[in-house]
Every structure is written in C-alpha cells, then in structure tokens.
C-alpha cells in the first residue's frame, strides 16, 4: 500500500513538473462555481493574491538583493545609517493605501453576499451528529441526508476497501438536496446538537449551524449539476463523514421531483398503514443507516469499548420496552431520539424492529408505532 502510494506520489511529481495535472478532478485553487456569490468570492480571492504577489516581489526583491549584494564578502564595511522619518512615513502610508484598495471592494462584495432578501423559496438546514436534515417548509417535504453506504463501508478503520474504487468517496449521500436553478433560495441554518457548518465549495460561502440559533444565507444557482461539500466545523467523532450533496435541476425537473416525492411519501404512508414485518424492516434499515450506523456500524458490531454491539446483544434482543426506553431517552453518548421532532414513532418502531431482527438477531417480533407511543 505504502509503496504503491510512494510510486503514485512520484508519478504525480513528475507530471506536475511536466506541467500536467495528475488527475482530472484535481484542483489547486478555489473553484469558480455556478453562482454570482462564488464568482465574487473567487474574483476577490484572486485580486487579494495578486496584491500579495505584488508586495512579495518588492519585499523579497529587496531582501534577496541585500542577501546577494550586501554580504560581507562583497561589502566588508557596513553602512552606519539608521532612523529616517521620511522613509518611515512612506512605508506606513503605502500599506494603508493598499489596504483601502482591498477594503472598498470587499465591503461591496460582503454586503451583496449577506443580502438574503427577495428569496423565492426557503430551505431549512439542520445539522446533526453526523448528518444533515433538510426541510422545504413551503412544500412540506423533509428528509435526512447522510453518508452513502459504499463510502461508509470503505471508511471503516481497516476496511480493506480502496477509497479509489468508491465513486465520490466521502462526498456522496443517500438523499441529496434537490433545488431548482435560477431561483433565489434562502437557507435557514441551525443545528440539533452541537455546532456544525454547512459548506459547498462551489457556492463559495459557508455558514455555521448553531443549536438554538438560526443563520441565513442564499444561493441562486445558474447551472444544473451536482455540487458536493462537507461539514466544516468540528462536530465530534464523525465530523469528516457528513457530506452535503446538492443536485441543482431545471425548474420543471424540480416541480416533477416535488410531485414525485409527495407521491412516494403518500404511497409509503399507505403501505405503512398495514404495518407488516416486511414494511418495518425496510423502513428500519433506512432509519438505521441514517441515525444509528455511525456508532453501531453497518453490521451492528459497534466499536469495542466505545459503542456497544447490537448484533447478539442481550439488551437489544431482550425485553422490548427497555429497548424502546433506551431509544427514546438515550443512554450515555446515545442521543434521546424520542425528543427529536424530525423522527416519528413509525421511524422508531421500524428501527427497533430492524435491530431485533438483523445482524443475526432473530427475536421475530414486530414493534408497532403505537408501542412507542405507549412507552412515551
């Protein structure tokens, strides 16, 4: 593995020295995204870089001139001058002027970037340890979005799966955020537990998701496409594993997606009206992969010493009311899922059914949403 990587590093260095990027998706600079904000930020970034390059040429020019021409072998007798008020004033005033040259456009750009007025639609983003919840209040749509299964398998310590073989490793989710293009979308950003930060590099900005507070930001995406990002504020063990995927589609496609979501949601409601084992297991698996998998792992084996295993667990397969109680109230590091308004009793019943009948557990009982309500 290490040899392979050293080889790759070498190839990369050779390619770079030949002036070619080693990979197609390889980047060294801020991306120019599909939004005006992104272009503003990119433009400003490049402007600041060139200003710095200009200063660098002067500063390092003087420094290296000195190093070369004023070394003792060339200049054995040092000059004795010091203090010069005129010079001191000059090198105080010039930086001030340069800074004003930076501050004026920065102020203009910032006011534009922070202006969330006139939004045509709103999406509420809630950060969780370690996934995102999206809500479209105008449409009544809401769902969780967490790391996809392939990445999750590959990212386990010693999984033996080469991340190179996983498409969009760590940057893929189960349910992407779908948004229309050419629409000013206002994001309301908050968190349920600790501070997170919602960041899609292609949009430029990031915004902290703070529990108990609501931050606002906006995008107006001009080009359909898939834009990927990650949580940018350390939020605990799996901070690196809560990606963001935004699928920007045309307005027509967006309307079709909304209709389809509602239809599927209704169909699912109908299906779940007859609460069968099959239905509960299917839903339970989804809920498990959203809320439980990062600690208890895909195969229910947990993390020894930190997160208990569910596979073969006497607690998980024991008295059902106790299991429901733990899931509702939490235990140690485990959150109280019963207190989360974004998780329904049906979700909880399904996931408990799943846990008692997966990973080799064979209790065989079916937990109903009413059972959850009873324990509450």
């Amino acid at each position, binding site marked *: 593995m290490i040899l392979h990587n050293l080889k790759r590093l070498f190839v990369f260095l050779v390619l770079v020295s030949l002036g070619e990027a080693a990979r197609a998706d390889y980047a060294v600079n801020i991306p120019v995204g599909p939004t005006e904000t992104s272009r503003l930020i990119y433009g400003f970034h490049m402007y600041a870089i060139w200003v710095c390059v200009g200063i660098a040429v002067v500063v390092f020019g003087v420094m290296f001139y000195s190093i070369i021409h004023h070394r003792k072998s060339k200049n054995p007798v040092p000059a004795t001058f010091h203090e010069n008020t005129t010079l001191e004033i000059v090198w105080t005033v010039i930086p001030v002027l340069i*800074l004003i040259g930076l501050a004026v456009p920065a102020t203009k750009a910032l006011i534009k970037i*922070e202006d969330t007025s006139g939004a045509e639609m709103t999406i509420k983003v809630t950060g969780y340890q370690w996934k995102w919840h999206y809500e479209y209040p105008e449409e009544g749509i809401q769902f969780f979005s967490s790391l996809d299964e392939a990445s999750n398998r590959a990212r386990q310590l010693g999984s033996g799966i080469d991340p190179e073989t996983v498409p969009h490793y760590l940057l893929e989710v189960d349910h992407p955020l779908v948004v229309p293009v050419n629409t000013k979308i206002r994001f309301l950003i908050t968190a349920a537990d600790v501070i997170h930060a919602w960041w899609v590099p292609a949009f430029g900005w990031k915004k902290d998701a703070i529990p*108990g507070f609501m931050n606002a930001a906006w995008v107006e995406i001009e080009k359909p496409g898939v834009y990927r990002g990650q949580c940018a504020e350390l939020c605990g*063990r799996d*901070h*690196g594993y809560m990606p963001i995927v935004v699928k920007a589609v045309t307005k027509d496609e967006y309307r079709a997606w909304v209709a389809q979501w509602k239809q599927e949601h209704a169909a699912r409601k109908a299906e779940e009206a007859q609460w069968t084992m099959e239905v509960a297991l299917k839903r339970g698996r989804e809920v498990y992969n959203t809320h439980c998998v990062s600690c208890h792992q895909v195969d229910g084996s947990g993390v020894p010493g930190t997160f208990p295993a569910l596979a073969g667990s006497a607690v998980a397969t024991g008295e059902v009311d106790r299991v429901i109680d733990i899931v509702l109230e939490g235990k140690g590091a485990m959150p109280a899922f019963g207190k989360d308004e974004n998780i329904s009793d049906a979700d909880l019943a399904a996931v408990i059914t799943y846990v008692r009948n997966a990973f080799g557990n064979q209790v065989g009982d079916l937990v109903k949403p009413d059972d959850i309500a009873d324990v509450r």
Partner: protein
Amino acid sequence: MATVADTHGAEHEHGPAKGILRWITTTNHKDIGTLYLTFAMIMFLVGGTMALIIRAELYQPGLQLVDPHFFNQMTTLHALIMVFGAVMPAFAGFANWMIPPMIGAPDMALPRLNNWSFWILPFAATLLSATLFMDGGAVASGWTLYPPLVLQFGNALPFTIFSVHLLGISSILASINIIVTIFNLRAPGLTMMKMPMFCWTWLITAFLLILVMPVLAGAVTMLLFDKFFDTSFFDAAGGGDPVLFQHLFWFFGHPEVYIIILPAFGIISQVIPTFSRKPLFGKNSMIFATAVIGFLSFIVWAHHQFTVGMPVPAELYFMYATMLIAVPTGVKVFNWLATMWKGSLTFETPMLHALGFLVLFVLGGFTGIMMSQVPADLYYHDNYFIVAHFHYTLVGGGVFGIFAGLFYWLPKWTGTMYDEKLGKLHFWLSFLGFNLLFMPQHFLGLAGMPRRIPDYAVQFTEFNQMSTVGAFIFGFTQLLLIYIVYKCVKGEGEKVGDEVWEGAKSHGLEWNLPSPMPYHHSFEGIDIQKAVADE
C-alpha cells in the same frame, strides 16, 4: 540595584547546588531558563509526535491507523501542548536567561516566584497528557474547546480545564516577574528607550498575558459550570449562547497568537542587526509598532468567527480592524530589511533562521491579509488554508524565531560554539521540510478540504502525501537539533570569547559578559555604566 548585589556578593561565591535538588529548589534565572527550555523541548517532541500521528493517518484516504475519535484527541492535544507546553515556555526560557543580562540585572526580580512559575508547568502538562488515558480519552473538541461539543466529553473535561487554569497561573506569574524585573532592575543609564528589542517585546507580551489569561480562565470555568452545575451560559435552551464562548475564547485567543509571535520579533530584532553589522534601522518605530500590534490584538478577535452569523456592520468593523494590523507588522518587516540594507551580512545558523523566519512569516502575513477579507474568508474559514496560514506564522514565525535565538545565545550560555555545519544542516532540513509540510496545505484548502478531518475525498491525496513526507522530514530533523545542543552543552566544540559574534558588543549588554556567564552576579567586575554608554 547594584547595592543589592554588593551586600550579597560574598555569601554567594559558590556554584550551583548538586544533584536533583539544584533544579527543584533553584531560584537562579539561568537554571530556571534551562528548565523552561528543556521542558519546552520535551513538549515539542510530545506535541510533534502527535502531529506525526495526524499526518501519518492523513497520508492516504481511508482510515489506516487510528479511530476518528482518537484523531480528534490528537489534534486537540497537539495544539494545546504546542502552544502552552512548547512555544510559550521556550520564550519564557529565553526571557529568564536573557532579560537580566540584557538590562544589566543580577537575576530576575522575584526569584522564588520564578521557581514556582516554572514548577507549575510539568504538573499541568502531566495532568493534560494524562487525560489521554482516562475513560473515554482526552477532550476531542479542538484546542478551541467550543461548546456544546466540548461538554460531551466526560472525565477528561474537568482535568483539561484545571490544567488550563494551572498553565494560566504559571504564565501570569512569569509575566509579573518579567514586568517587575524590567521596571526595577535596569542598570543605571539604561533608559526604557535604550532597552533592547527582545526585552521590549517581552514586556508587551507580559502585559498581554496578564490581561487575557484571566479571560480564558473565566471562559473555561463557565464551561465547568455548564457541565456540572446546570448553568446555561452557552446553552440556548436555558437562555445562553454557544457563540458567547467563542467571543470569550478569541478575546484571549487572538492576543495569544501575538504572545507567541512578539518575543520571536524581539529575537529577530537582536539577530538581524548583529549579523548585518549595523544598528537596528528604526528602534523607536519598532517599539511603537510592537505596542500598536499589542493594542490591536484586543480589538480584532471576532475575525475568527466570520461564519457564525454576525451582523454585517460587525463583520465590517472586525475586517477593517484586522487589516490595520498589517500596517505595524509591515513597519517591522521593512525595518528588518532596512537594517540588512548595505550591511555586511554573514549567514551563520542564527541568521539563517532569522531569514527563514522573515520569508515564512511574511508568507503567513500575506495569507493573513487574504483571510481578513470577509468575502474570501467565508471560503477559507475552517479549511486547510487556515491550517497552512497559522502554521506559517506560529511555526515559521514562532518556532524559527526560537531556533534563531537558541543558536544565537547558546554559545553565550555554554561557552562553547555549536557545530556550525550541523547547525546549517538543521536549518536547511527544517526549512525545506517545513515548506513541503505546509505549502501544499494552502492548495488543499483552496481545493475544498475542511480542517480537522481524519479522512478525505480521493482528489486531496497527492497534496496530503507531500505534506506528510514534509512532516516527517521536519519532525526527525529536530532530533538533530537535540544532538547539536547536547554536544554544545557537553563542551564539545570551539571555546568562544565574550563577544561570540563579531561586533556583538554594540548590539547588547550580554556580550560584555564572559561565556559562559558566571552562575551568580553576571555583571560583577564589569563597568555596567561604561558598557551601557558604549552600546
């Protein structure tokens, strides 16, 4: 001052005590300086080992070595140990060794306090490191200790907070000592404005420390209350605000980074004139610039929080105030360049490190200017660009400043010249390793890699690999440093005279003293007033 020395003269005509008790009971500024520097070196290796664990895990995508929770513990402890255990004690070591001889004093003003301010440190550091072995491991919230995340950690939290309290007490005591020494023990004729830059930068640093350490202590105590006594300072559900902690933390944290860099400025302001064989170009403006930087450090803190959702006017204020820092910092850099201009430069190891400092710190300054711009910072914030930036300033600036000072004064302390060949080798390996380590992190950040993640998307692989290779080069080069210092301390090498560096007498009082300096009463038999006047 001089009279104090005279009355004690006779009874102090003995060398240091023998054995371990010498170090535990010492009130001698030189011994305490050595203790500080030795402690800093040990913590530099401990913190460095943690950095290498971080970089080894980041060598390739996927998890190979450690659990993400342990990774987060490493990033947290690496930062706390490097800041409070390595860099700050190293500068305190320089202060102890050099401030008395630079101002013509026999010792620090408060010797017993001096002993105590050092001996708190090993206990604080042990307590902090011991949290790694507690149930649930060390605090894994990053050194910024932001709630609510930090409140999720169990047993380690109160111990971490207590060790932060201890570290703060140690810093405050050391600062009081430095201020009292500088105000009261200067030689006759050595006015404040004649005082060397290193003493000036430390004086201002000491005031910063006294002003901000209590703020940190208060903030972490509030965390303790939220965790154990059901208060809600930082919990919105109880009427508090998690962002309040960030304001308090950075009100400490921003001056803190200047606490780390100002003494390095001081060292560089001693080294560059010596090896340019010219006086410092504008000393008055250097002193003034340092004071201005110290003041500005208190009014810019929220530039660490541009993404928390501050109102636009507040963002604009913090942006303008932050940009202003570039002006006094520029004054310092231009002064160093003007000092070199038409000098008679030689490039012994201290000067190489000073020039390395200049290059790296200026690069870190550029990224600093870029990040002061709020629109661009909304992108840079919390990605690898900021990691590169603060390592360029704190390692490229702070640690290279420490290296410069170490090689500059080591012959004065030991009476023996260090191995110049190995010294130069150490510089070049450190400089190249450092750049290979941190330069690629700029590009990682710009390409979109967030900081504090143990694993990354595959397009970030190449730059991470370069960075890891650089980290191991930089890390293992420091073993060479230990060997060079060990050899020099053992006396293997050329013996040096009083001046050590050609013409050094005109750059500081300390070069009038024999090398090594006498254990007690450095200035006995030396006409201080003449030395001050000659300088």
